[in-house]
């Protein structure tokens, strides 16, 4: 593709849903491109289907019958007259076969070449490629382990704690930390089962658990003409079940020389697979200052907006322009970090109850606004969060001149964020932002401990609970008396009315 001439895009099919489909539609609209949305049976009302220029149904709610159906997506691409396909993240975004099929259909694939997706798609293979390119990797097996005795031997050789990881995995699924021989086999069986379910591949490998690790990743952009730049790093260490929940950019503890080394390695990694478009190279940054290659995500990341906030580069627009064959319109030297940005991934789940998913209908929805506050979302009051997809409903992204200001502003925005009808992680983020370890930027991927969650569930000193109880009692009273013919005239209310004011010591018989 590196010799391909510029292709003028006109109409882009977005093979995704939710906030990322909305994000891509925005970029397309700014560039004057028409958009083609696809929607499953439960998403006819969804924001992306209403925002796009065209919208096509692609089947029943389960993703395997809609958003993951290559044949249907290609059929809609043809019927709609789209000349490009943007996959968003998740779903088909890292499917090399789909990318190739899009290209074979004569369309522009807004993403890296299928060969790069394939090379980085298997964690085992990407490790080999990175090692060959001289990129540091975490000690462990390169091959998937299929033999229990071998598993035991390798675990003891590299030393506990170790991590079990799905070879085709991502997002923490199929991942297990193991402390000793005793729990190794059970974790192995569980990791394989989860990997098979999530990725259709039960291959699992083993690697050393790096002590006091942070998850730091580098954003890169590469054009079709051999130019690769980095857009600095993001710290994504605040995770639950190995899934990122809050990210910040830049990484608040990265020494400048480490930043330079890490970004240089990221560019090497991209070059090693002849990368094009937006990509992310993920590293484990150990407490000892060493960093190791984890994987490369060959797509736009969920957390890309914080990089946009500190660099001023619109990554979704950049993807489309690069896909159209345009050479990069800025150089590495022109890029710099301005201020600080934080993203909170708002999930429909209950942090006080083991982060259990909390699907349901949103009855009230009000997003925060004000200076330097951005919300990428795909929900509204009246929207039912479907059971079938990822429970993330929105991303709150906030910029500040420095980290402190950014934290204060993020907390302010969280206070403004109103979601009624389902539980969300909004309150949880306020607890994270108030945590002394977070404020001091002294945290690791193990930040969310059982103790942290216990403190969250224990909650406040009871004031908020009392307010909630009062609210509920008033609501109940209104409900109980709505049916009554004339309001509040009767029974125990009237005596009180006649008294006209309270007597503090007065107790009422029940």
């Amino acid at each position: 593709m590196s010799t391909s001439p510029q292709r003028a895009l006109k109409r882009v099919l977005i093979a995704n849903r939710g906030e990322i489909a909305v994000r891509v539609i925005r970029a397309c609209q700014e560039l004057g491109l028409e958009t083609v949305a696809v929607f499953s049976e439960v998403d006819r009302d969804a924001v992306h289907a209403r925002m796009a220029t065209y919208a096509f149904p692609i089947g029943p709610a389960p993703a395997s019958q809609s958003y993951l159906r290559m044949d249907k997506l290609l059929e809609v691409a043809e019927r709609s007259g789209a000349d490009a396909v943007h996959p968003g993240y998740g779903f088909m975004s890292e499917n090399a076969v789909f990318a190739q099929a899009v290209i074979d259909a004569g369309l522009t694939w807004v993403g890296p070449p299928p060969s790069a997706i394939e090379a980085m798609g298997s964690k085992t293979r990407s490790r080999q490629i990175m090692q060959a390119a001289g990129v540091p990797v975490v000690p462990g097996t390169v091959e998937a382990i299929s033999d229990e005795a071998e598993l035991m031997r390798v675990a003891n050789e590299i030393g506990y704690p170790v991590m079990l990881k799905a070879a085709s995995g991502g997002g923490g699924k199929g991942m297990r930390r193991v402390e000793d021989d005793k729990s190794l086999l059970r974790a192995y069986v569980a990791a394989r089962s989860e990997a098979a379910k999530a990725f259709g591949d039960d291959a699992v490998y083993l690697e050393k658990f790096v002590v006091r690790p942070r998850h730091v990743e580098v954003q890169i952009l590469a054009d079709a003409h051999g130019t690769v730049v980095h857009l600095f790093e993001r710290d994504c260490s605040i995770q639950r079940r190995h899934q990122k929940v809050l990210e910040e950019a830049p990484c608040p503890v990265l020494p400048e020389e480490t930043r330079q080394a890490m970004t240089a390695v990221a560019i090497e990694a991209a070059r090693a697979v002849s990368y094009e478009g937006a990509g992310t190279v993920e590293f484990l940054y150990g407490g000892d200052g060493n960093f190791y290659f984890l994987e490369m995500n060959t797509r736009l990341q969920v957390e890309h907006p914080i990089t946009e906030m500190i660099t001023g580069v619109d990554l979704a627009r950049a993807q489309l322009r690069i896909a159209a064959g345009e050479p990069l319109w800025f150089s590495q030297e022109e890029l710099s970090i301005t201020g600080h940005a934080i993203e909170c991934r708002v999930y429909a789940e209950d942090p006080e109850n083991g982060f259990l998913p909390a699907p349901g209908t949103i009855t009230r929805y009000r997003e925060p606004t004000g200076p330097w506050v951005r919300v990428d979302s795909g929900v509204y009051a009246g929207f039912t969060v479907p059971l079938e997809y990822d429970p993330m409903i929105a991303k709150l992204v906030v910029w500040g001149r420095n980290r402190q200001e950014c934290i204060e502003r993020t907390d302010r925005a969280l206070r403004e964020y109103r979601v009624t009808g389902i539980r969300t992680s909004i309150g949880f983020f306020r607890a994270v932002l108030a945590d002394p370890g977070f404020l001091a930027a002294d945290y690791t991927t193990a930040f969310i401990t059982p103790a942290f969650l216990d403190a969250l569930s224990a909650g406040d000193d009871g004031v908020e609970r009392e307010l909630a109880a009062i609210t509920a009692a008033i609501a109940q009273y209104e409900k109980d008396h709505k049916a009554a013919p004339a309001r509040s005239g009767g029974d125990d209310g009237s005596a009180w009315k006649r008294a006209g004011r309270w007597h503090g010591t007065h107790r009422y018989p029940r």
Partner: protein
Amino acid sequence: MTYDVTVGERVFSIRIDRDKAGGWAVQVDDAPPRHIDVRRPEPSVLSLLLGDRSVEAGLAPRDDGWEVDLLGRGYHCEVVDPRRAALKLGGGAGEGAIKTSMPGLVVRVMVAEGDAVAEGDPLLVLEAMKMENEITAPIDGRIAAVHVSAGESLEAGAKLIQIEPIDGDEES
């Protein structure tokens, strides 16, 4: 009108009445009563002025009361009218029933009727929103009934497993 409102482990006895000013007089437990001005600016929002403190709360009805959200946190408030509660006594049978709070798919069932389990033992695995969630035994006990099987789709509130405590001083 008095309600018993349970939030987490706390039970509040809330005496509530309209007052002359068109607002509400609210007394919580033994605390002095307070005047509260209440408005409903949106269908599922209550705006409260407690004295001069402004509080905005979101409200969603639940079977046993209300889900109230304040500043990003949800509070499940079970509301009981003590005068009516007496009528419901003896309804029973809820003891030891493990239910699912979310809709989902049963991936695996690890126990069978008659099994003895210890607190924390895995009972079954539920999948919702692509995540597997292990449901564990809340108490030491014996499995009295298994209501679901692998592959089954469940609505929120569905009964999963009936567990009965095993302890020496059980009534016989």
